[in-house]
């Protein structure tokens, strides 16, 4: 039987259609059909100036807009050779890591929802709201920020942000224990996720899967450590990898667990960044008068919550980019779905899909 999961379905995380060939409950083939959210991001970019692209990058991965901004501005800055003030770098790291927590909270919450647990979703949403409050305090927007600019930031931190951020971190850390009690170590949850959809490391690398999904397969690969950009080389943090605590390495539970651990690592980074951040400094100091990179091209990767977020920018020396290609981590993560979800049941397919943490806005662009 051919079953159409989506484009309207409660757990496809957006507008995704999966053509699933089933034999009873067992799935024999999955064909993801994407493009329902295609908004011609790359075509748009060829008609916009470099600054105007930034709000569009927000809308690609709308769960982690800060990280998208970050990747883009880092790439353009490297192309132009801009040195960014230290304070800006630290603020960017704080924002990116806060957004990583927010993104992981949403990923974990909706993953619980896919498995059938409703309550953790709302707890995580509640805490995510607090992060969004911090963002709103900083730049006025709650979801699509347009906060990082080429060479700087749109605003400096507001008065009282540092205290509010510390407040949040102090509040947040104990909450993780609650999530663990409620969901992570829940036997039903473990039954549903352990040993399901095992993604071996070689397959993951061959399929270009990155980020928490790759780390869940036991590969300690994190661009923040491997190719430190911005000021990530100044922080101490660990790379959590999947160890197969309840099943085998690389199963859904490992991917989930890596995200839980990563939130705690992000908390560590934010604490260090808040301490080390220079308290004075003009965030507009390095803003170029006109963003006009010299001729050339660059491929720059940064670590977004979903994995390696790459921007391939070709500049022809004009204020409008010649070509911008976004290599989205969720694109490759969805690519591997057929490989790892074959032979499992319909319920498992949705569990695996949820554990890959895709954002359709980023896949379709």
């Amino acid at each position, binding site marked *: 039987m051919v079953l159409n999961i989506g484009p309207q379905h409660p757990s496809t995380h957006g507008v995704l259609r999966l053509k699933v060939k089933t034999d009873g409950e067992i799935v024999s083939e999955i064909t993801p059909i994407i*493009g329902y959210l*295609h908004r011609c991001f790359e075509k748009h970019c060829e008609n916009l100036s470099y600054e105007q692209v930034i709000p569009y990058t927000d809308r690609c991965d709308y769960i982690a807009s800060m990280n998208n901004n970050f990747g883009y501005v880092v790439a353009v800055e490297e192309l132009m050779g801009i040195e960014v003030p230290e304070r800006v770098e630290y603020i960017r790291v704080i924002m990116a890591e806060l957004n990583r927590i927010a993104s992981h909270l949403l990923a974990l919450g909706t993953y619980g929802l896919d498995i059938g647990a409703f309550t953790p979703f709302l707890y995580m949403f509640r805490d995510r709201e607090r992060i969004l409050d911090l963002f709103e305090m900083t730049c006025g927007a709650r979801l699509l920020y347009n906060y990082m600019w080429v060479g700087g930031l749109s605003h400096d931190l507001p008065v009282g942000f540092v205290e509010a951020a510390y407040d949040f971190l102090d509040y947040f850390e104990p909450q993780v224990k609650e999530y663990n009690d409620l969901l992570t170590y829940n036997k039903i949850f473990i039954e549903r996720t352990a040993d399901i959809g095992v993604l071996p490391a070689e397959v993951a690398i*061959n*399929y*270009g899967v990155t980020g928490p999904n790759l780390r869940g397969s036991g590969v300690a690969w994190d661009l923040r450590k491997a190719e430190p950009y911005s000021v990530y080389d100044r922080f101490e943090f660990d790379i959590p990898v999947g160890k197969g605590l309840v099943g085998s390495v690389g199963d859904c539970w490992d991917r989930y667990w890596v995200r839980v651990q990563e939130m705690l690592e992000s908390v560590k980074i934010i604490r260090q960044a808040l301490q080390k951040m220079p308290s004075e400094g003009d965030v507009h100091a390095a803003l170029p008068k006109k963003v006009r990179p010299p001729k050339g091209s660059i491929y720059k990767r940064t670590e977004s919550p979903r994995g390696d977020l790459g921007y391939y920018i070709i500049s022809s020396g004009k204020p409008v980019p010649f070509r911008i290609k976004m290599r989205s981590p969720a694109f490759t993560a969805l*690519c*591997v779905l057929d490989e790892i979800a074959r032979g499992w049941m319909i319920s498992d397919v949705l569990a695996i899909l949820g554990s890959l943490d895709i954002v359709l806005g980023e896949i379709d662009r």
Partner: protein
Amino acid sequence: MSQDIRTILKKAFPAAIVEQEAETEDYLEVRPGEWFEIATFLHDTPELKFDSLQCITGVDWGPEAHLEVRYNLHSMEHKHKLEIRIVLDRTAPEVPSVEKIWRVADWFEREVYDMYGIVFTGHRNLRRILLPDDWVGWPLRKDYETPETYHGIVVPKIKEEWE
């Protein structure tokens, strides 16, 4: 890109590497003919071991110029990277598919095909990926013209007048 990779490749495939004026450029230009063999070599040779294909970018240099495909490779083990550029003829852009070597290329190549009409020979499932199957034209080419309608739906070229 280290010079070693360049020399290794030049030794193995003397005909396929396009000579560049500046050897310091951090990319390698390759002729499309032997690309599949080169890719296999890059993937399998232990001292290169480019096990991860980061990105495939299609580029159109304008209606009078050529198309280009760029591959960003990376090695998880040796932590080195390489950019491969393949210049293609605009009228019949064909390049061997590397989808069998790096499975991730499956979707990347489909995307490039979708946007530029570059045919990846040997790809097992070369269909449009982001656009509908019956879309006409290659949208990211510089000479692309937006169609008036799609199945009777007006494709707005410019924003409709407000009044």
